[in-house]
């Protein structure tokens, strides 16, 4: 009985949670300190492909095309952001976001960093910390809210987009002062 409940719970909570693996715990300052950029954007395309490397063999990579605004400077952004794994059985990567995080048409917040080899010989803007780098949003009566995911995540508590933008600016200014 416990098994059924747990399985049922896990499957259903896929709508809300993630099935990630070992990622780094990054709060907002940690994430902003490590990543290249953050955007509030709509997923306009989602593409999964298998890439075969002569040594490493086949690995699946998914790329989201995002269109929206930079949470750093407000500029318009269209960017491809990738992560390892897909959504077909047998290809689910333990660190990947769940399918519902990546639904085309969703408004999300994403943190990403360029890497020359997300896979060997494959450069991409990597979703920073994989499933830890993407956050869903919901539209509320007072504006769009980003759904926080608790301790160890860049967005810990539910927060309005404008407030996150301000928080990011504060963190960046503090880090800039530290660098100066």
């Amino acid at each position, binding site marked *: 009985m416990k098994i059924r409940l747990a399985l049922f719970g896990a499957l259903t909570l896929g709508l809300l949670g993630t099935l990630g693996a070992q990622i780094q715990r990054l709060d907002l300052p940690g994430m902003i300190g490590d990543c290249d950029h953050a955007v509030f954007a709509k997923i306009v395309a989602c593409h999964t492909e298998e890439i075969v490397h002569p040594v490493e063999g086949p690995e699946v990579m998914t790329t989201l095309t995002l269109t929206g605004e930079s949470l750093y400077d407000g500029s318009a952004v269209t960017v491809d952001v990738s992560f390892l794994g897909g959504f077909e059985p047998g290809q689910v*990567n333990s660190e990947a976001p769940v399918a519902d995080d990546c639904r085309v048409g969703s408004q999300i917040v994403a943190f990403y960093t360029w890497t020359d080899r997300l896979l060997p010989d494959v450069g991409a803007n990597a979703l920073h910390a994989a499933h830890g780098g993407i956050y869903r949003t919901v539209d509320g009566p007072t504006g769009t809210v980003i759904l926080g995911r608790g301790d*160890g995540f860049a967005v810990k508590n539910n927060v309005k987009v404008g407030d996150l933008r301000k928080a990011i600016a504060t963190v960046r200014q503090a880090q800039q002062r530290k660098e100066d």
Partner: protein
Amino acid sequence: MRIAKTIAGGLALGTALMLVAPKDSQGWNLLGHSLGQGQRDFRVFNNFSGAGANNNVIPEANFPGYVGAVLAIWKGCVEWSSVAHGDGSSNDSTQPNIGDGGANFDPSFQAEDDNNGGSTGNTHAMILSDNPGVFAFQVGGSNGWRIRYHQNHNWADGPVTIGQGQADLQGIACHEYGHALGLAHSDDNQATMRDGGTTGDESLRSITADDSAGLQAIYGAMSGSKPVITGLAYDDQTDQVTITGTNFLASGNEVWFTQAGIGGTGTPVKLTSVGSTGGLGTEIIVTLPGTAGNGDVLVRNGNGFSGLSNPWPISVDDIVFPGGPMISSISPPTVQPLYSGTGETVTINGVDFDTTNDVTIAGLDVESFTVVNNNTITIQVPILGALGPVDITVATDLGFDAFEVDVVAPATPVLRLNNGAPVANMLTGLPNSLKMGGTPGNPVFLWVSGSNVQTPIPGLFTLDIGNLGLSLFYLGVHTISPWGWGEGIYTFSGLPPGTQIYWQSTEYDLGTMSIPPVPTSNVCQGNWIF
């Protein structure tokens, strides 16, 4: 925290919340798959780079034959075992015990792979990729899986604590293997299966009650009918393996071994249709298969999750360190214990000796050793605690190797004066050590003279000193100790400077009650200074 998230998300997502089944307070979650007996194997492709990934060269009795990254990953995986791995001890002081699952689940370590094992080879390997913010990942399920560790981290193999900037291979292996066996991330922030980790943190190595509860939700709590290994003895002379435990079948058991060497398929080396011999299913005696090596032994008594025992370590041969020294021979092949400074040496032949920093024999440091070149070391063997087979060990910066030699008593009586130099200088009032080598237990008679002219004693022996007995003095009798040597301390005074003094001994073999003439030793010479 999980409940708060659920409510917040559920309110926003409307009816979605209505489908969420409440759980107990536990944080564990399941991926929905399990590993049958055919997928319990795991291997390690040791392509880990970085200074810290393979610098642990300390062997461990509970994890024989492997060090470095392989050892760290082996430990990380068997933490999920039903009971303690061997006696549960390890060099990992961050946890009291390795093997805490308490479920009908046990993994089978299958040594090293020679490639990354492909998509479903059940192999841990480093992937040549840089994934920001991600340590490692697992893909696959009940038909096989893979675990990959991203290269852009400073991996550390422990075995104890790691540096602040290092990623803990053992802990992250433990976490990833939790995914392989069917666990998703836990909402318990203390669990090994928690969402995120940090560098410099070893806490993922030891699973928590929440992890164990999740494991038991998949495989069931450890069954009373599950075979359990509680001990193992291996006789390397007969290759006989004696396994003790409980719940072995009277007949029809399988015994699984770790494969020897690198590569293979990952399928355990299996002996089938094995009976138990101890009565009440408590003992199995088998002959070690030729393809089995260092690693673990498991016993299978049936199908299902509960039909496979815990893994128990078995050591069948020496450890091999990548780049470490390897001893090929010792010359002479049997060794007599000698006193340092005698100038008599034993030669160790092999490879990769250039960074030798320690040589031991029977666990004792050899104070005098010389690295002649990358292939040769000479040592002077100290007197040991006993005769018989002992290991000579060479340690370098990259590991160590041991070679067994037989330490034997001198075949004929041997006499050494002080440091063993051919001619020893002697001073008034200072003690002189006379060391007598021979067969343990035999009496040795010690003689001294100012002449090196022979003294024949008809029917008994002929000494090379004593001038026909005119200048011969009997000093006393000593007994050869179990380690092949006896010793007498003598102090002299009043001799003119320049006096030459000669010593010799005779040994009587009590074992054979030998018929005279009894053998005599070499002659030692002392030069009286003042």
